[in-house]
């Protein structure tokens, strides 16, 4: 006999189930793809009903027990209730030279978005319109979801409605970075769900930036998921800046399918939210491709941030590089779980994964869990993880030249994170991210 050890439902789970039931009853999707998307949503809803929020007995969520951390759940915001208020609070970051599209409280804010004069070959459409109009790319929605149940993604899919469908035609090289800015501006806690799909055609290129910001002191929850399809010979750069308000919960899911001979690079800079989780699912589906997944996480106070990554070398001759740097001050808690799977056919795989943590606080904590699962026999793979504090000898050298202690520390932290930041290819974006990291260090130094 099997004993089902089904934990008691939490209040947040009950609220979420009730909200979802109400939403399904009133929110029918229009258009030719409604049935297909309806099924994807229904499946996610059913999975959530059965499994609920992820908790510590789910291996991928071991260090980020959402069942315990998410005390409340809120209905998603469905419209911008007060455009002027949004404008007043809107201090979303801008990146030089980038085209910006803004989501306010999870809802596309057209008045703040630059959607005119799109480059030839680039199309950007609200998700609902793309479903209604039967945009071909929408067929791919939900196809990159992992086999195993992922509670944050299931919620995102069950609440699916707001978001963008971005399509880059075959051969189109979009030089100007495209920036999706998410800002939370409300005085009261609420939830936002955004879901985007990015389809980059054969031989095309795109630089995409997503940023997340919001009000301090408001316990809002942003749940964002993005699926990126990088076509054969494509070149995709994805930058993610997470600077949510200090009591927010940020749940992010990044999924990517990488075609043949593609170049695919992601970089995440995280310094926001009380509790942050980023799940990354990457899959090589064509040979000869190169992927670089990198990130810097800066934590202080009692912040908690978790990056959990699964990279699937499903085919041969691909190269992957992962480098994650975490700086932990005070009593913060960082998590890196990285798993590289090399399938039996994925010969000549070249994979290197490294996670490094710099512990500045006596009670800061880092959980590092790199894993390799290799089923092919002719591969080069390696992983490493380190955790330590600032090197006293380096500090002394700087101080002996007259550099004050705080400034010396900041220089060394900057150097530590700089080793990852230097991989951001676009000069303007790299400089902007370095400036954000420097601002964090300045603020911390006081």
């Amino acid at each position, binding site marked *: 006999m099997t004993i089902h050890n089904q934990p008691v439902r939490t209040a947040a789970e009950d609220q979420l189930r009730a909200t979802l039931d109400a939403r399904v009853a009133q929110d029918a999707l229009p258009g030719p793809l409604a049935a297909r998307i309806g099924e994807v949503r229904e499946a996610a809803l059913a999975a959530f009903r059965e499994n609920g929020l992820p908790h510590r007995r789910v291996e991928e969520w071991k260090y980020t027990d959402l069942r315990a951390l998410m005390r409340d759940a809120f209905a998603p915001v469905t419209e911008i209730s007060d455009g002027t208020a949004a404008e007043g609070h809107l201090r979303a970051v801008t990146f030089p030279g980038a085209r910006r599209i803004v989501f306010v409280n999870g809802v596309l804010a057209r008045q703040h978005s630059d959607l005119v004069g799109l480059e030839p070959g680039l199309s950007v459409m609200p998700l609902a319109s793309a479903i209604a109009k039967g945009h071909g790319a929408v067929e791919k929605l939900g196809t990159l979801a992992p086999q195993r149940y992922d509670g944050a993604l299931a919620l995102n899919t069950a609440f699916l409605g707001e978001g963008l469908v971005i399509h880059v035609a075959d051969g189109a090289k979009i030089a100007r970075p495209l920036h999706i800015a998410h800002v939370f501006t409300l005085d009261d806690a609420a939830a936002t769900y955004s879901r985007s799909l990015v389809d980059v055609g054969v031989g095309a290129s795109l630089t995409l930036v997503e940023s997340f910001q919001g009000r301090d002191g408001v316990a809002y929850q942003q749940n964002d998921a993005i699926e990126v399809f990088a076509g054969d010979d494509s070149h995709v750069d994805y930058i993610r800046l997470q600077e949510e308000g200090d009591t927010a919960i940020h749940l992010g899911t990044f999924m990517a399918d990488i075609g043949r001979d593609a170049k695919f690079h992601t970089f995440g800079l995280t310094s926001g939210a009380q509790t942050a989780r980023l799940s990354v699912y990457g899959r090589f589906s064509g040979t000869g491709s190169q992927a670089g997944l990198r990130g810097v996480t800066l934590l202080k106070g009692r912040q908690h941030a978790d990056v959990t990554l699964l990279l699937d070398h499903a085919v041969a001759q691909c190269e992957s590089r992962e480098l994650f740097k975490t700086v932990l001050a005070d009593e913060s808690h960082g998590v890196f779980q990285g798993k590289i799977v090399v399938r039996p056919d994925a010969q000549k795989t070249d994979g290197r994964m490294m996670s490094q943590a710099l512990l500045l606080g006596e009670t800061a904590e880092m959980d590092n869990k790199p894993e390799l699962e290799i089923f092919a026999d002719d591969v080069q793979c390696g992983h490493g993880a380190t955790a330590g504090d600032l090197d006293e000898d380096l500090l002394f050298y700087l*101080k*002996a030249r007259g550099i004050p202690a705080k400034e010396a520390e900041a220089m060394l932290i900057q150097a530590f994170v700089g080793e990852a930041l230097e991989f951001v290819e676009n000069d303007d974006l790299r400089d902007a991210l370095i400036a954000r990291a420097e601002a964090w260090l300045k603020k911390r130094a006081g």
Partner: protein
Amino acid sequence: MALLEIKNLHARIDDNEILKGLDLQVNAGEVHAIMGPNGSGKSTLSYVLAGKPDYEVTAGEALLDGLNLLDMAPEERASAGLFLAFQYPIEIPGVATMTFLRTALNAQRKARGEEELSTPEFLRLVKEKAGHLGISQDMLRRGVNVGFSGGEKKRNEILQMTLLQPKVCILDETDSGLDIDALKVVSEGVNALRSPERGMVVITHYQRLLDHIVPDVVHVMHKGRIVRTGGKELAHELEASGYAGYGQDAA
């Protein structure tokens, strides 16, 4: 008044007493050499003066131009005019040499209530001084000492000393790891800094360096104290006789 005055200095690392009552007085315009066998405490003296945290001063005092060095943080000592040229300059990946030099120089100027140098002023200054020491623009762009040869690291130390214009320079075995050409370049850099307002302490195991940087006073250090003081001819005498007269246990 002496620029650097050390009286009865005792210091230890863990439970190991290394400086055992050291006295030294360096006047403005003088170059002093401190020689001695390995383990006599020469490098410890330089670290204690610069404020390395591993060392604990248990007695005595050290004054820089009348100010009590031992009460100051390492960065305050530097701003007050103390400079230690490290025996083993450290590599700092990710901190560009240029950024490091500028941060150090401006931090010291700020601490002394002076105007910070503008970027063009700074660049002009570095270019001129680096040129004399054979330090290329490429080296200045690289991380501090990253990928530098032993000689390049020492030249980088002298460049820092030249830019920072300290009152008292302590050179800790600056000759170690240098071939004769590098030794000449480094010595010329040091000699260019000799001035009636500045004092220097050159720590070395070998007399060779002192052919290039000719000292006014030579001290012999042994078991944590200065045991003999003389003129520059003392260095030659030691070169001939070795440190054998200073106890077998010193070897």
